[in-house]
């Protein structure tokens, strides 16, 4: 009965991963990361219900907290990069290489 939830979770994760790999806009990449995180949350909550204890739901809360913190730092970085380079493309910030 939880299969649908897990399939949805897998689809969302795949969409997020695909977005991270193929989109150039940093904001979109960022949202895709959030999508992956939330796909994981969905899986956690589903398993929690399936197994019948609360651990999965607790971890889902932790993930949300970490995601919120990450949004704060990540957006700040993206805004700073945009201010200096006038671009939000992740491929433009490629100076740190061989």
């Amino acid at each position, binding site marked *: 009965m939880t299969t649908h939830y897990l399939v949805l979770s897998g689809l969302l994760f795949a969409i997020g991963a695909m977005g991270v790999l193929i989109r150039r806009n940093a904001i979109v990449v960022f949202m895709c990361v959030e999508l992956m995180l939330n796909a994981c949350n969905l899986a956690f909550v589903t398993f929690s219900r399936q197994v019948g204890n609360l651990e999965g739901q607790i971890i889902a809360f932790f993930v949300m907290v970490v995601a919120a913190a990450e949004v704060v730092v990540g957006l700040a970085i993206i805004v700073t990069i945009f201010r200096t380079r006038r671009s939000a493309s992740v491929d433009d910030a*490629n100076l740190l290489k*061989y």
Partner: protein
Amino acid sequence: MESEIAQITQHTGGVIGNAWLMIAFPLLGAFILLVFNRLTDRWGHLLGVAMSLASFVVAVLAFFELIGLGEAERRRAVHLYEFIPNLDINMGLLIDPLSISFALLITGVGSLIHIYSIGYMAHDEHRRRFFAYLNLFVAAMLLLVLADNYVGLFIGWEGVGLASYLLIGFWQFKPSAAVAAKKAFVVNRVGDLGLLVGMFVIFTTYQTLSFAELKPIEVENGTTLAIGLLLLLGACGKSAQLPLQSWLLDAMEGPTPVSALIHAATMVTAGVYLVVRSGAYFFPEGSGAALAVAIVGAATLLAGAIIGCAKDDIKKGLAGSTMSQIGYMMLGAGLGPAGYAFAIGHLITHGFFKADLFLGAGSVMHGMNDEVNMRKYGGLRKYMPLTFWTFFIGYLAIIGFPLLSGYFTKDGIIETAIEHNQVLGWLAVLGAGITGFYMSRMVFMTFFGQKRWAEDAHPHESPTVMTVPLIVLSIGAIFLGGYLVLSNRLLLFLAPAVGRPEELPTFHFVSVPGITTLALVAVGAGYAWVRYAQAEVPVVQPRGSFVTTFARRDLYGDALNESLLMRPGQWLTRIAVFFDNRGVDGLVNGLAAGIGGSSGRLRRIQTGFARTYALSIFIGAALLTGALLLVGTI
């Protein structure tokens, strides 16, 4: 057996008990001069002379104390300190007739040469350093002859080798001097190896290296023969005997007083000392080892004489003659107790007349702007009368002119040799004839004939400080031989230390070998007179015959060493260098280059695109998950 040597007894107190002072004085001198360096520049040479003289005084006092003892008690050992307790090796001195004879020669002639050097080195800015090395040499040489065991002897042996190296290369700014010093050191190492291995064998066989604990032998066996031959190798190195003779001629690159002190009068006789000192233990009369010594001596005395005939450099001529005269001593040292006395006698008289000749040569060079080529001398006897007369006395002594020193000691060796071994004895007679030729050639080319000087030469007599030692040495060259040999004074004095022959030799003024020797010497001198005093001597060296070239090139000794040892050695090093460059370095460098190259390619993976990294993370996570699924832990 009558050749029994006296027992060595312990001695304390008196001058003999403090004989270490003999070594300590010059050692202290060397120490002060080397440590306080420039501070001693002004009076350093005086300190050097004083230390050498102080040592001489101690030697003379010890000598008188020794002859005050009974004949059987004249071998006194003085214990100094424990040297290597684990092996029961103690450091001590052995004062006996043999060692005190050497000590007197070393300090006596050494002091004269120190005094001479004040004048000779007056214009050298490093005179103080020169005296430091001379003092170091005297100390090491005294340790060599005074030590009561082979270890002490070896330390002195290496000490004189070091001093010789430092002094040959004293003018090290001349490449030839630096090379000559290195050559002397390396060739001596070969001989030292023999001495060292000989000492090892002695220690494993007898568990001792002390002269007092070794027992004289009468019949040789395989072990003593091996020891004898190894010690002979050591003696050959130090005494420039065949086949290790090649360094001595080059050693003349050093200042002339060095040639006189080290490479004529004292150090090169260390080999003779070693053989005579070990005589009773490893070279019994008539043994194979003793025969080997005599053969080496006879071969070298001829080789040295032949080389001496062709040299135009006055010092190299004298060096050839030194080789030859030490050959005589070695020949004598191979003939048992009677020969020992004559060998030591010849050694002492040679110390005087050869030092006289070398210092005379130095005096000539001093007056001729350091010219050494005899072809540019000629007619000098009027300009340097004192040098001429002292040189002439040395010359008469070395060719064995009747009643001078060399006459007695060399004839003694020749007659003893003929008694023991006809062939070697008559070779020695032949050698004496050649000596007559080459020494006459030297005197005639230098002091007689026409002037062939360089244009800027102004020959003048040397200062008194240089001529006085010459006079003292030439007095020794006149009288010493007769004093030592007649009525067997030296032989009887040395008997407690080296043994007494079964019947005492009597000196024959008229004998077949003696007359033959004199006749050959006269022929040689006459031929030299015709060729080098009457006829004109070309200033430029003529090409000369095959034989002359042979002698000029030191009997191809250097060429032989070069082709047999040096070239193969160079090949070996070249192969090693090639292996090192291509093999070892190739491996190491190749490895480094491989890593460098591959990392240069690998770093291209770091593209700087965040999405590429993300992809690799995803692929990695996928692979990891797949692997876990395969193993079945999930």
